[in-house]
């Protein structure tokens, strides 16, 4: 047992070193895709909390993502605030929008909740498109400044990679903490047996809204990171398809599985980008992935026992060392 734990530590250390030296290993384009994967991970982790732990389905997360991106871009461009203030403010604004959506959503569940979130996302998208005075409408916002640390400007993918790495690791750590905390336990209790949870004194309304707010803050932060990376945002970056893609990542990740979500985000972000080679057929490939994935992995890839896979790897290593000892 102790031995296998140390092997697991070696694997984690290996992954850590790999993450640190990644920009020097892979090309410009792959790094670009990996940065997107990191940003998506932050958003999808928040969505995963909402979906897996509180059982609320949202096809509207692109709205929070977009609100975060626009808030951050406008705060830096119009008010001249630095990135490091705009980023948390973007999270706060997206969180407030989350409260706005969560309160009407309390009355409805399942199908009707899905519809409410879609309606919300469509309205936000239309406002982004049409309110030219604030959002510059269909022209988008250009020239969003890159973040700076001291006098150091994070303007290349290599530099930005480390920023996104820090934030996505932070998001992973936070989400693991939230899930294991009293909040996570109460959310799971509400999801599994809402009446029972109520009867033992869990304030279900409060925790459902809280899950919505946490999840929209994550999306807002993701949006801010996105805006300052691409430096150009357009309403179509936040349309309903983006919501669908986030939801698909969360569902493929599997309910209540953070490693599952992480894997799904990485695989699906890579798939979306690398399907571009297929040109026109790309979206058909994506459609097939969704339809077939739902037939064969309806519970998401999180249900595949990752611990058992790691165990298999560990056993492989051990049997090798044992074999060498025997000979």
């Amino acid at each position, binding site marked *: 047992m102790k031995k296998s734990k140390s092997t697991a530590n070696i694997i984690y250390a290996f992954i850590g070193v790999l993450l640190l030296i990644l920009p020097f290993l892979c090309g410009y384009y792959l790094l670009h895709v990996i940065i997107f994967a990191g940003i998506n991970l932050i958003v999808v982790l928040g969505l995963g909390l909402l979906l897996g732990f509180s059982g609320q389905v949202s096809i509207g997360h692109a709205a929070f993502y977009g609100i975060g991106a626009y808030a951050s871009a406008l705060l830096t461009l119009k008010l001249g605030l630095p990135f490091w203030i705009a980023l948390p403010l973007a999270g706060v604004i997206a969180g407030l929008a989350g409260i706005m959506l969560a309160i009407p959503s309390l009355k409805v569940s399942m199908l009707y909740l899905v519809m409410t979130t879609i309606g919300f996302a469509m309205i936000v998208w239309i406002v982004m498109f049409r309110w030219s005075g604030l959002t510059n409408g269909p022209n988008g916002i250009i020239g969003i400044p890159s973040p700076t640390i001291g006098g150091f400007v994070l303007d290349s993918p290599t530099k930005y990679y480390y920023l996104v790495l820090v934030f996505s690791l932070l998001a992973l750590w936070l989400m693991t903490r939230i899930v294991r905390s009293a909040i996570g336990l109460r959310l799971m209790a509400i999801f599994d047996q809402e009446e029972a949870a109520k009867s033992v004194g869990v304030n279900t309304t409060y925790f459902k809204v809280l899950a919505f707010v946490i999840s929209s803050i994550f999306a807002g932060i993701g949006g801010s990171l996105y805006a300052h990376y691409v430096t150009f945002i357009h309403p179509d970056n936040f349309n*309903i398809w983006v919501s669908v893609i986030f939801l698909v990542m969360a569902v493929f990740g599997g309910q209540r599985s953070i490693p599952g979500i992480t894997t799904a985000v990485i695989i699906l972000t890579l798939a979306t980008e690398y399907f571009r080679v297929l040109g026109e057929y790309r979206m*058909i490939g994506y459609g097939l992935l969704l339809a077939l994935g739902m*037939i064969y992995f309806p519970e998401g890839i999180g249900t595949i026992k990752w611990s058992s896979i790691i165990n298999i790897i560990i056993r492989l290593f051990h049997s090798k060392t044992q074999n060498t000892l025997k000979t």
Partner: protein
Amino acid sequence: MEVLLQALIGGLAVGAIYGLVALGFTIIYRSLYVINFAQGHVFMVGSFMGFVGFSLMRRFSVAVFIFVLIAAAMIAIVTVFLVYGKIHRADHLTFAIASIGVGIIMENIVRMICPDPRAYPDIFREKVYSVGDIFISTQYIWVLAITLALITMLQLFFYKTKMGKAMRAVSEDRDMASLLGINVSYTVYIAFVISSIVGTMGGILIGPIYFFSFDMGFMTGLKAFSAAIIGGIMSVPGTLIGGIILGVTENLGGVYVSSEFKDAIAFALLILMLMVKPTGIFGKAK
């Protein structure tokens, strides 16, 4: 006053089409309790097939309608056989995502064949009648007449035929219906064929009013779904009325409030309805 009436008439016709597409949602939801997000794309594919048929014939022909509807039924059967039939028992989220996948596939196949928006040939021999200062296009009359005929047929099917009664039994209690000797998987096929046919009809009817374009499916699908919820997703006449309410409100809002935010009106109405009465105007609390 003229503007108001004109907006009402336009809204009525577009609303009837929303209602037709929304019926597809209603039929599937009533029998299987799942949402078919590809319904809007079925509408788009129907519109495309109608465009191809009428462009080839160059005149109005009932044969085109029949061919297109048969093709729509075939598409429904193929999708049920390949995808929906395997997952209609899964939870609604799984089904929703798979159907979004099917929709993406449909949209992109059509996009490869026909990437540009196209205008329909003038199949209904458009004439405009004027009553005072109000203009009524013959197309609007066609749309309303065909919609009413289809709704009547559907109501008769659900309440008078054995198959329709069997489908209602399946929606009440699938396991019990199965025990009583109703072939459940057969009713799944029928439900999808009917929803595909009504969606396709909507697609053909909207062709002469707007343009056909490969990306019209998702937005129309969402609006139609809103219509179904506003009217009450469990009721066939309610769905149609929901569609008409949505079409008229949208048109009036476009004229009197803001044409830029016209598309947002449908969704604002939806959220309002969900907050006030989630089961819809004609829905009964379950």
